[in-house]
């Protein structure tokens, strides 16, 4: 039989009226967070007429996709995209693998000098990279790695690279929050430490893996400082490096007539498009969170 309420149950009243301020706040902040993307999109669709028309602010009157065509040409898009993808994917793979592994050592085992070494890990992330860039350059030239992307990729497999220490720190904090019961049980059953790591820790820490994967991907994708230091021939560079080159006087002169704000925004949008796609693809899993984690497993 259907339940008949004389009055709306209290929890329903609370959930609609009581939460209205929450929604208003969230929508307001969400708008601020969406702004940069709306701005890029709106500007990249503007035709030259719209650009000079001061009454056109957000909604272009004459929508054009010509800007994207120019952007693809100016950026040498498809070749750069390929380079960017290869470099980023290798680096991210290395970092997720090595940082989760290393962090487990710091989070779960007691050994001599552990805290000193962890301090050293933090050290390496606090030192402004600009301080170390010249000696690093010399170091990589001794290893014959200059002129390639190896200085960006190889350190990632050793828990270093761009913000590697931050990822070790992220993993460590998450591991430390996990209850040890499962691992203890595994140890009692005679499971080796490596096996425990692969079979228990990796599956249960999916959220942190995903967080690190996404962050590492985004940071490597957007980084131009290090690759442009080590890669001498910039014409083989990544998309983001190209975007930076567009700001130099030489490029400005070369593409002066084509490089309007609209094209510029089209370029930026095209540059971060793969990141956006990656995010949309992973979003579902990311949002679902770690329903299958911890002791529930």
């Amino acid at each position, binding site marked *: 039989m259907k339940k008949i309420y004389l009055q709306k149950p209290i929890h329903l009243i609370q959930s609609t009226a009581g939460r209205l301020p929450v929604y208003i706040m969230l929508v307001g902040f969400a708008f601020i967070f969406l702004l940069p993307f709306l701005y890029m999109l709106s500007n990249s669709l503007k035709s030259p007429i719209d650009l000079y028309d001061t009454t056109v602010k957000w909604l272009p009157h004459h929508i054009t996709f010509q800007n994207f065509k120019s952007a693809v040409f100016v950026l040498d898009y498809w070749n750069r995209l390929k380079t960017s993808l290869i470099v980023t994917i290798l680096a991210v793979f290395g970092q997720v693998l090595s940082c989760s592994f290393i962090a487990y050592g710091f989070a779960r085992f007691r050994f001599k000098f552990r805290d000193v070494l962890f301090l050293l890990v933090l050290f390496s992330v606090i030192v402004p990279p600009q301080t170390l860039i010249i000696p690093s350059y010399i170091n990589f030239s001794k290893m014959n790695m200059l002129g390639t992307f190896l200085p960006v990729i190889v350190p990632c497999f050793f828990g270093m690279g761009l913000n590697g220490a931050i990822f070790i720190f992220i993993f460590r904090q998450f591991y430390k929050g996990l209850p040890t019961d499962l691992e203890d049980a595994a140890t009692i059953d005679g499971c080796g430490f490596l096996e425990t790591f692969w079979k228990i820790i990796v599956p249960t820490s999916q959220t942190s893996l995903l967080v690190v994967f996404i962050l590492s991907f985004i940071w490597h994708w957007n980084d131009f400082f290090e690759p442009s230091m080590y890669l001498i021939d910039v014409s083989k560079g990544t998309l983001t490096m190209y975007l930076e080159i567009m700001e130099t006087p030489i490029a400005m002169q070369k593409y002066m007539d084509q490089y309007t704000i609209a094209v510029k925004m089209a370029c930026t949008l095209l540059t971060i498009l793969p990141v956006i796609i990656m995010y949309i693809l992973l979003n579902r899993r990311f949002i679902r969170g770690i329903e299958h984690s*911890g002791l529930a497993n």
Partner: protein
Amino acid sequence: MKKVSAKFSLEKRKAIAGWGFISPWIIGFALFLAYPFIKSISMSFSKITDISTLDSVFVGFNNFLYAFTVDINFLPMFLKTVTSTLIWTPVIVIFSLFIAVLINGKIRGKAIFKSIFFLPVLLGNGFVLKQLLDMGITGTNGIITIPESFYQITGSLVGDIILNFIGQLTVILWKSCIQIVLFLAALQSVPEPLYESARVDAASEWVIFWKITLPMISPIVLLNCIYTLIDFFRDISNPIVGYIIQNGVKSLNYSYGAAMGWIYFLFIFVVVITVFAGMRKLIFYGGEK
């Protein structure tokens, strides 16, 4: 079932396993960081005589003294960076925790909000964001425009101050995405039974937050505090970082750049260690015995 070797105690085996797990980092450190570290420190204590071979002579603390006593640019930039970091870090951490708790609550459209609040991270710290900032957030070509009538009400001076503040706040909000995500991940990993048993005991949501949620996510609070500090200090748009690049990379003044870098580093290090030490007692690690 494997045989547990009788030679080593569990304690000992764990220590060896620990070294094994962190060994990639040690190798990496020896290969990629040890030399730059040492070289950079030695550079900061010397004066380079030949730029191509980096030959140098030892000059003691000269570079460091120069930064504090002669260079009129260094100290003001340094102090400006420090104050803005110390002011904005708590704001960001509290704001992002607040948003994360809101999103994690019982609301509709959870997935949409979660997705949106992460979006600015996609811009990274890199060039895309820089270009947007160059446009000026509240400028004429900027992202936020305020109607003319606003100026008429406030007067141009006050109007500018408010606009400036809004602009700064917007950037700050964009910078809190990663913290929001980390908090969300932490909030989701708090075991549900804890909440259930608290609710059975008729604890209010407010009490539950302070007694259960906050202690359970405290490792991530620490992580976020440290992350925010570091993120702020290392930001390329910081005047002091720009100044270090200018000296240490672009104008080939390597040793002075290195010296400033290490002064800056030492300061950040002291701040980070203070935060670590200060929060040590407040942090609850679920996995620690």
